[in-house]
């Protein structure tokens, strides 16, 4: 009987221990969905102050960090005396001042201009814990000031999220600024545009290789839409696919080993696998309808593409190994230009509804379709930033075609192209 009693006791205590509600708090959402950031003005370290340089540094950095969406910028008007002091080490910063303002992260930095050379030291501090998070010294020329700001923005994202930002990169796009549709390259924020081609014909649909050193595009230069490959730094250019009919929408495989493109050499626009030199490897689609616009999955095993095999253009996914294709989107009447995110978790595309294109995204299994934009104008050609955080796309709201960038969830949309000509067909390079 004693044994039973002790067993009973044990069981009861277990029950009690389970049931007795230990004091517990649940906090199911942060009080604020953005990190309060104090971005101080960069200060001259040695030599004469160059307000224009500091201005440009701060503006480029602020624009990048604003697009990132992580931060709430504290009003610089409220900054106290520490904002005017150089502080490159945590011991030199008066964190209490920043705690008072509610800042959680603090950016401080100095610059010095010596002739053509620009040196920038930038720091990111954790205010509540009073410690240095990251910092770097950049040396360049005075005209590299925006690049330095972009590189630091990338570094900040790297430190805070574990993944670097995509700002020190380039956008390739098509512009008719010179009178013809040519291939152009510019910074991610629309600065420093340069023209890469002079075909004086029609150039379309660029795509970066994953090294970022090569571009693939379509040009009518030789009187037919042919596929060209261009090395950005050497300027070397070669026509790689000039089969009869269309040679369009070329896309590098994620490992650069192959190219997927639409050819109509067999009389019907179909998707083919080509070598990097344009050599024909395999025909991937065989439907009677139009098959265009391939986009690789990041593992290189599948392709999303547009097909009219069911009448209107819809997005399908083909498995390269088995050749089996399945329909991805089921809701739209006209879906086009799929772009598989570099993380692989979503596919962005455009859908025409009511005579207008908007950008949507969907999981590769066809679930969780989301509409990201709500006009105005036609919003087309979505392409991902190399980190999958942002989408660049073209818009024709207001008559002119221009490029826009937004976060992958559709927020924070903003223009990126400087005025002058129409810009379309963007592609975001890997980090430079």
């Amino acid at each position, binding site marked *: 009987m004693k044994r039973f009693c002790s067993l009973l006791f044990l069981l009861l205590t277990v029950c009690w221990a389970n049931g007795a509600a230990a004091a517990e708090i649940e906090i199911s959402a942060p009080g604020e969905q953005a990190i309060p950031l104090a971005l101080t003005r960069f200060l001259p370290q040695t030599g004469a102050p160059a307000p224009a340089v500091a201005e440009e540094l701060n503006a480029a950095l602020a624009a990048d960090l604003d697009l990132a969406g992580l931060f709430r910028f504290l009003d610089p008007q409220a900054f106290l005396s520490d904002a005017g002091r150089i502080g490159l080490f945590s011991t030199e910063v008066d964190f209490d001042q920043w705690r008072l303002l509610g800042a959680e992260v603090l950016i401080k930095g100095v610059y010095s201009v010596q002739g053509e050379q620009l040196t920038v030291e930038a720091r990111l501090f954790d205010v509540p814990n009073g410690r240095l998070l990251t910092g770097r010294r950049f040396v360049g020329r005075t005209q590299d000031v925006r690049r330095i700001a972009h590189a630091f923005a990338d570094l900040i994202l790297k430190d805070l999220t574990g993944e670097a930002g995509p700002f020190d990169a380039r956008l390739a796009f098509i512009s008719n600024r010179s009178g*013809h549709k040519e291939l152009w390259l510019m910074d991610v924020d629309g600065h420093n545009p340069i023209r890469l081609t002079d075909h004086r014909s029609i150039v*379309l649909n660029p795509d970066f290789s994953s090294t970022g050193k090569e571009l693939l595009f379509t040009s009518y230069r030789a009187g037919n839409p042919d596929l060209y490959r261009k090395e950005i730094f*050497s300027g070397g250019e070669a026509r790689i696919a000039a089969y009869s009919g269309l040679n369009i929408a070329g896309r590098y495989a994620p490992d650069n080993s192959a190219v997927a493109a639409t050819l109509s050499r067999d009389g019907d626009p179909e998707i083919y696998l080509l070598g990097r030199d344009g050599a024909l490897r395999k025909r991937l689609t065989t439907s009677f309808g139009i098959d*265009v*616009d391939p986009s690789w999955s990041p593992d290189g095993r599948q392709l999303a593409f547009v097909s009219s095999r069911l009448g209107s*253009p819809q997005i399908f996914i083909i498995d390269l190994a088995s050749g089996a294709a399945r329909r991805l989107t089921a809701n739209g009447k006209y879906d*086009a230009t799929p772009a598989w995110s570099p993380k692989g978790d979503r596919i962005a595309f455009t859908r*025409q509804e009511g005579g207008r294109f908007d950008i949507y995204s969907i999981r590769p299994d066809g679930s969780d379709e989301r509409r990201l934009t709500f006009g105005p104008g036609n919003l087309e050609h979505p392409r991902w930033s190399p980190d999958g955080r942002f989408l660049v796309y073209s818009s024709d709201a207001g008559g002119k075609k221009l490029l826009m960038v937004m976060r992958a969830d559709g927020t924070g949309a903003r223009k990126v192209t400087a005025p002058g000509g129409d810009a379309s067909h963007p592609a975001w390079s890997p980090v430079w």
Partner: protein
Amino acid sequence: MPKQPRSLTLILAVLFALLLLAGCASKTKPATEPAATPPAPAPMATTDLTQQPVARGVESQPVQSGPVADHQAVAGLTRIHFPYNQFTLDDTARVTLEQNAVYLRNKPAEKVAIEGHCDDRGSDEYNLALGERRAVAAKNYLVSLGIAAERLSVISYGEEQPLVAASNEEAWSKNRRAEFKAVR
């Protein structure tokens, strides 16, 4: 030879960029002296758009006039039009094509490029494909009427060359077309 200094500056710029990156990568040690490379002008800063008629490409041949100017519209050949997002030939198009076939039969030496075009609604690449299907449809019908296939070539411009640069129903219906151009 305006090409060589360009590529030289480009190479220098690349070298410089690499050096800059190397400098960025080392946080503790002083940054690599950029003096190792002569101060080359940045590629972005010096690009003069108006004074660069020659492509920086490897195959930088003198630029020929564009393909559009190559082909002249043929007086006896009438363009045909298509319904939205379709490449089927309606009765009007068939009648026009039959007249075109008569003209082509009378001029057996003439070679013709059939251009397929679309209106500006729709995705660019899809429209390139659609334009080609339109041109091919026209070609096939002409071939069925006895015109030799070798005389007919096909090219699609998608929505790149609208007949009427406007966004309304009238312009769209005019832009959805196949044109017949003489090949020299």
